């Protein structure tokens, strides 16, 4: 189920310093959010798609499907925003009368909706770039550089590792329950899910005690300190990231009629 994670390890950008990948995604995300300009959003969507799919050598079909993932939320959200109570019926593009009010879409609300649609997708494509090219262990090591408290980083490392262990356990319990017809009806399904969650929780607790012992056996001193891999920071890449941001700002200004 965690396909993003799989690609994070199998793409052609893994040798680039995680900090650069992190900055490229993060700074572009913030720039496009602040500029809030449709043309910039559109460019960011295209840029991120090109870098992720082409430079990262990921299958386009997968990327496309992934872009459809937030559509439920996005469509429901923008419909709610586009449809307003309209008093000035002259600007109405589409509408219905309901309880002596006009409910509909006018030019302004449509503009807001389209702008939002593009901005959200641009932001999503920045997030996907990070998710699809950077494993969580590397994101955690970048956060360590930014002086995120060690306790949080330790919790995140443990969480990441044991998500996979517990998922496997949950899957096995689910399989053995299905093999014994545990999901044959809604009622049984409830009970089976309940006992699955309980059993998983009890096991999680036991595992945490065992884990503590195994760490103690390796001279654990309260800190989950590990050796980070060495990477070279490329000045050229950092420059490129900054250059792209400047370019986006100029485009926004030009499009806004300021230049």
């Amino acid at each position: 189920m965690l396909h993003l994670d799989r690609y994070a390890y199998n793409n052609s950008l893994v040798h680039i310093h995680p900090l650069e990948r992190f900055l490229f995604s993060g700074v572009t995300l913030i720039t496009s959010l602040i500029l809030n300009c449709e043309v910039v959003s559109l460019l960011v969507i295209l840029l991120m798609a090109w870098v992720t799919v082409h430079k990262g050598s990921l299958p386009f079909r997968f990327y496309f499907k992934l872009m459809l993932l937030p559509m439920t939320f996005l469509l429901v959200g923008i419909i709610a925003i586009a449809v307003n109570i309209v008093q000035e019926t002259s600007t109405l593009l589409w509408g219905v009368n309901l309880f002596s009010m006009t409910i509909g879409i006018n030019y302004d609300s449509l503009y807001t909706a389209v702008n939002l649609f593009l901005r959200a997708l641009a932001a999503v494509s920045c997030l996907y770039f990070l998710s699809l090219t950077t494993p969580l262990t590397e994101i955690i090591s970048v956060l360590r550089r930014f002086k995120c408290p060690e306790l949080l980083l330790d919790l995140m490392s443990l969480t990441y590792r044991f998500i996979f262990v517990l998922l496997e356990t949950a899957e096995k319990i689910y399989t053995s329950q299905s093999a014994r017809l545990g999901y044959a009806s809604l009622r049984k399904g409830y009970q089976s899910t309940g006992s699955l969650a309980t059993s998983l929780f009890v096991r999680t607790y036991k595992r945490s005690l065992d884990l503590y012992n195994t760490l103690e056996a390796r001279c654990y001193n309260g800190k989950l300190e590990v050796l980070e891999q060495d990477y070279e920071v490329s000045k050229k890449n950092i420059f490129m990231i900054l250059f792209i941001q400047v370019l986006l700002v100029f485009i926004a200004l030009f499009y806004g009629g300021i230049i």
Partner: protein
Amino acid sequence: MSASILQVQGLHYTYPDGTLALRGLSTDIARGKKIALLGANGAGKSTFLLHLIGILKPFSGKILLHGEEVKYNRKALHNLRSKVGFVFQDPDTQLFSASVWQEVSFGPINLGLSKEEVKARVIKALDDTGITSLKDKPTHFLSYGQKKLVSIADILAMEPEVLIFDEPTASLDPRYTKHVMELLDQLNQSNITIIMATHCVDIAYGWADWVLVMKEGIITKEGTPEEIFTNDQLLISTNLSRPFLLEVFQELSSNNYLPRNISLPKKMADFKKILQENAPKNK
């Protein structure tokens, strides 16, 4: 083909992550047999077995139960799983109820049986596996071997016609290994077809009366244990070692300790008998 209880025809399956697991696997499971399924890790054994209870659905190919094709709707799966039981390798993942009694009653209750019938089945399953004394114990209090027996009772209580075991003796101490293997023989005698996936060629050789060998997603060879384990080429190509008993027996034969025409011994007891009968007279 009324002797076949399950027919498997050309199963293909690929995991969501792209791993090709089955590539046209076909075989027939004959009624009443003791079948060992061998193959290296990654050969696709578990994937194949999960198809037999409809947990995985093949991309192409089909499975026939009593000659009728298995459909993947709720009712058909219910029927399949009530006939084919699966004892998983690690009892810890199979046991999820608080007490042994509740645990064993889970399957029969899901079959929709009456309360009395469920009770009778649980009592019988606990008795058959020899763990009646544990019935009120909480499952997490049990030893590994006891949990294994509970996980078997779990499935027995559903009274399946076919029983699948994935590595039933892994991590068991010799005493429980013996207990479980005897139980498997008993169950087979009461007319349950048994399929056992195992890494242990010694156990497979001594116990099975039919052996399936998997390699790269298909049954690459099947036959009697004698046929399979004397096929050196097959053993090498599938990374299997020769059973100990057979290895020693063949070494003795080829070094003239024993006459050539003796049929292969399958158990230690048979082997000892052969040795005694053919013992050299003089010192």
